[in-house]
């Protein structure tokens, strides 16, 4: 886990002091809202429908138990007792008062956290794989590189006012769990035939109004050249990205306009001068940062714990949880546990202060004091001894964090939507709750198997609807009602794809039947127990579209 040095402490401390004075001047009206707005956005503070929302940076999703306890404290003292984990591995608090925000930032600084560069046209949180460092298919731990990128991008003077926001994701495993194909820059760590470490670099992926899969700009970039190459990508974007229209200002628009070959030519022209220059990553620097991410003191254990196997045979609920929420670990005798924040009737990705404290306790007791936030809005305890699983499960279940639904239908990715967000066309959370309740039956969910349903309240797609196996997006039909467009066949990871819209939109009340009909087609067409997405790919959207629209859907009461 990275720890602040004196420079980090100083700069964050100075930022807190500066912000405190800015708030004071806003509250006394020395600053107008227009003048204050860019200043508060520099500290991740948004004005939403009901209150202020603060987005706190959680670098590549990693948290200490102390940090999570501070989130619980903030939830209790300043918010309504809960926080929301986001699709970029951050946390948001939705019910804040402006006058409390300086104290909140000071509290965060005391546990080495901030809200810098979580808003605005700058480089945002570097996100990564929630199983970094422990996954069986890991090639190289991405976290040292993610931390190097974080340090490099924080307060970078040349790229502080980009045409638009910029998001980078990095994966270090064979399977991409960081959605790199739909990021402005996506990085995949690989080894070439000689065993040298480098990056496959994707550029121009993204969601929102114009979803696109990233284009490969480099199939192998030696690791030493990571910083200089990204610098050149940023410089070309900073100079030539559109600034006349905020809806056409992301790098994906530039890459599409120029074509990847021309874009690459411009990047590599810029790169010629700085490649091998002072920006080259050295072994010393990589080692310095890697030292923060060494393996914890694992015990030498047998590969499988007998007690676990026995209990699994006796207890169906535990067996379900084991199957869905517990993931393999590269060290024998260990496992990674996903704490599901997708309990029925709870907003996806929300955790109460009590749950946060409980998760922090579990981390201290069972997982070397650390946790991860996943971009699918759950929490991970990455280093659990298999012999601790049963005890952990009981505690997690008592706290409502053990719904055995990871990767299943009710493990929905969902934005905040119309209840909170001023950008939304429609509510998303109530829809997610309704769908989760409708298909609550675990037997049914297990029969359906792995499926990713992603929901967003508008085109901004913060809920990643475009890469959902089923994607739901709130649309504006200018009649004051809530309408939802449904797409099928999207996917994240190695087979990333943008979903195809099946047809005209549906009302809120029609949606459960729509989902049901989609699932009926899947059950009818699937070969053996293949996943939903594997059924969709060869047969395409047409059978789904035909069945859903075959007869009028009555609104559900």
């Amino acid at each position, binding site marked *: 886990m990275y720890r602040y040095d004196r420079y980090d402490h100083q700069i964050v401390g100075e930022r807190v002091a500066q912000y405190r004075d800015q708030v004071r001047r806003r509250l006394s009206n020395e600053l107008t809202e227009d003048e204050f707005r860019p200043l508060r956005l520099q500290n991740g503070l948004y004005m939403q429908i009901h209150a202020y929302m603060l987005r706190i940076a959680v670098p590549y999703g990693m948290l200490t138990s102390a940090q999570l306890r501070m989130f619980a404290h903030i939830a209790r003292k300043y918010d309504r007792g809960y926080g929301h984990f986001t699709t970029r591995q951050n946390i948001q608090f939705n019910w804040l008062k402006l006058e409390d925000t300086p104290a909140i930032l000071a509290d965060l600084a005391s546990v080495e956290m901030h809200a810098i560069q979580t808003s605005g046209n700058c480089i945002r949180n570097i996100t990564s794989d929630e199983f970094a460092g422990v996954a069986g298919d890991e090639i190289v731990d991405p976290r040292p590189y993610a931390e190097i990128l974080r340090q490099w991008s924080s307060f970078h*003077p040349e790229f502080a006012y980009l045409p638009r926001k910029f998001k980078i994701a990095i994966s270090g495993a064979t399977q991409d769990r960081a959605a790199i194909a739909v990021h402005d820059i996506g990085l995949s760590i690989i080894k070439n035939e000689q065993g040298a470490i480098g990056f496959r670099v994707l550029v121009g992926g993204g969601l929102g109004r114009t979803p696109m899969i990233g284009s490969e700009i480099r199939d192998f970039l030696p690791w030493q050249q990571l910083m200089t190459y990204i610098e050149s990508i940023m410089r070309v974007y900073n100079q030539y990205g559109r600034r006349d229209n905020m809806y056409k200002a992301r790098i994906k628009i530039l890459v599409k306009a120029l074509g990847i070959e021309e874009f690459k030519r411009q990047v590599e022209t810029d790169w010629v*001068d700085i490649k091998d220059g002072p920006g080259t990553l050295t072994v010393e620097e990589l080692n310095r940062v890697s030292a923060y991410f060494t393996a914890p003191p694992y015990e030498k254990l047998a590969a499988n714990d007998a007690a676990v196997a026995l209990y699994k045979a006796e207890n169906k609920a535990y067996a379900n949880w084991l199957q869905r929420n517990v993931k393999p670990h590269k060290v024998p005798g260990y496992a990674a546990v996903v704490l599901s924040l997708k309990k029925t009737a709870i907003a996806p990705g929300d955790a109460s202060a009590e749950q946060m404290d409980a998760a922090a306790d579990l981390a201290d007791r069972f997982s070397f004091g650390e946790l991860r936030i996943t971009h699918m809005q759950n929490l991970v305890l990455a280093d659990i001894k298999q012999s601790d699983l049963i005890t952990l499960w009981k505690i997690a279940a008592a706290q409502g964090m053990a719904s055995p639904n990871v990767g299943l239908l009710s493990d929905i990715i969902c934005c905040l939507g119309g209840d909170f967000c001023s950008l939304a066309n429609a509510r998303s959370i109530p829809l997610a709750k309704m769908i989760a309740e409708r298909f609550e039956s675990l037997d049914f969910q297990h029969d359906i198997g792995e499926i990713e349903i992603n929901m967003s309240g508008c085109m901004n797609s913060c809920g990643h609807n475009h890469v959902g196996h089923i994607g739901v997006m709130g649309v504006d039909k200018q009649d004051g009602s809530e309408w939802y467009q449904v797409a099928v066949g999207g996917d994240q990871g190695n087979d990333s794809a943008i979903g195809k819209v099946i047809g005209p939109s549906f009302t809120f009340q029609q949606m459960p039947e729509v989902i049901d009909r989609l699932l009926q087609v899947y059950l009818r067409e699937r070969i053996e127990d293949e996943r939903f997405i594997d059924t969709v790919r060869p047969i395409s959207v047409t059978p789904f579209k035909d069945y859903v629209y075959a007869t009028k859907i009555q609104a559900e009461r």
Partner: protein
Amino acid sequence: MMMIKNKAVVSDDWGVLRLNENETPEHVRVAAGKIIVPLKVWQAQRAKLQGRVDLYVWLNSDERPEVLQGEVVKFAVIAVNFPKFADGLWYSIAYNLRARLGYTGVGFAAGHPATFPACLMNVVCGTACTVV
């Protein structure tokens, strides 16, 4: 017009030439004394202006400094017009001026000072002044 360097006003007798609607780069009269002229005026009246010592150039947001390749050494000062403070394009242009065109003079930003992050310009571009 004031020149601010290191938070102090160092000079306030600089003129900035901006073209009116009916003026053209070729024919506009460039006053005597310390003055900063638009790039197009420099290019159009180069023969007449190049002997002058206290004459500098300013670039607008849609102009590239690369057109001054080979000439940058002439200018102790190149100014950039930042009408909108959140337009970060110029940070990269200033970087290129320094790193690639070998510019070692003073770069400064002419624009609204109240919200201008001059500190950032200093760091990356080596600019030392903000012009009001």
